[in-house]
């Protein structure tokens, strides 16, 4: 069995219909457990007080905002190289989800930044690159809406996705090589010494798992919707001709 079998819309829809009833409730359960654990059962941080509870929303959403663009990049490349329609539709389906995660990261970051830094916003490298990423998401969604021919729209949005990947990468690594902003370094690292304490880290991992599962659920659901919309457009076009 090859992964390219899922480029067949029928096969993709059937597989999504089998996976969704498992992944969607699992994402709800994981998010519920992670957020309740983080909000009710973790202590305040000795420096940041109760604002540390924002980490359970801010870090997973920021992570998924970047990863969603990464997924769109892969599916866009698949479209450009192999011309599989499902991959272009999956990229289109993922964009509003990525935008929502980017907005969550920006809003929670501003709400966290005000009491910690004394400002809602600063033109810090990571904050600025994240704002540009949000604008790229908006541009990507608008481009899909603006171009009537679906294949041309998929071509143009794929190119935009490749260009926007620079900012997605920049927003991920800006804190590492551009050490002049307010934003702290990465909260999660393979280096144990740089990690947050286990008491915050474990519920954070559960929340990250919840956000990943939510992303997978929504991408599957929205891709199936896009496949059906494409089929509906074909039927309606035939009806107009006859």
């Amino acid at each position, binding site marked *: 069995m090859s992964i390219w079998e899922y480029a067949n819309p029928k096969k993709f829809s059937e597989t999504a219909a089998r996976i969704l009833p498992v992944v969607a409730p699992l994402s709800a359960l994981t998010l519920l457990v992670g957020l309740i654990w983080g909000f009710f059962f973790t202590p305040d941080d000795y420096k940041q007080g109760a604002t540390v509870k924002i980490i359970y929303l801010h870090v997973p959403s920021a992570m998924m905002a970047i990863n969603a663009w990464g997924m769109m990049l892969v599916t866009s490349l698949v479209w450009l190289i192999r011309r599989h329609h499902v991959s272009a539709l999956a990229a289109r389906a993922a964009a509003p989800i990525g935008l929502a995660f980017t907005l969550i990261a920006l809003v929670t970051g501003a*709400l966290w930044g005000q009491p910690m830094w004394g400002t809602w916003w600063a033109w810090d490298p990571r904050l600025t690159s994240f704002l540009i990423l949000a604008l790229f998401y908006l541009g990507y969604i608008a481009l899909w809406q603006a171009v009537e021919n679906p294949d041309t729209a998929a071509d143009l949005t794929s190119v935009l996705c490749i260009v926007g990947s620079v900012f997605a990468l920049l927003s991920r690594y800006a804190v590492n090589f551009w050490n002049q902003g307010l934003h702290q370094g990465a909260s999660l690292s393979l280096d144990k010494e740089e990690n947050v304490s286990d008491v915050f880290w474990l519920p954070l991992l559960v929340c990250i798992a919840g956000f990943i599962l939510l992303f997978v659920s929504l991408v599957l659901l929205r891709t199936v*919707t896009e496949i059906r919309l494409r089929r509906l457009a074909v039927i309606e076009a035939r009806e107009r001709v*006859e």
Partner: protein
Amino acid sequence: MMPDLGKYAVPVLGSYGATLAILAVLIGVSVWRHARVKRALTEAEARRARAENGGK
């Protein structure tokens, strides 16, 4: 049961409120659109099947 958030109640509760609101809109719109498109496609396929069977 409710943790004492002290002077940080507004940013913490604001963050949770804003996140849940954005996620609710995202999930709500996705599910509603999925159902609407599914219904429209079912109707279109039924129309097509009727037309192919000569309107029977």
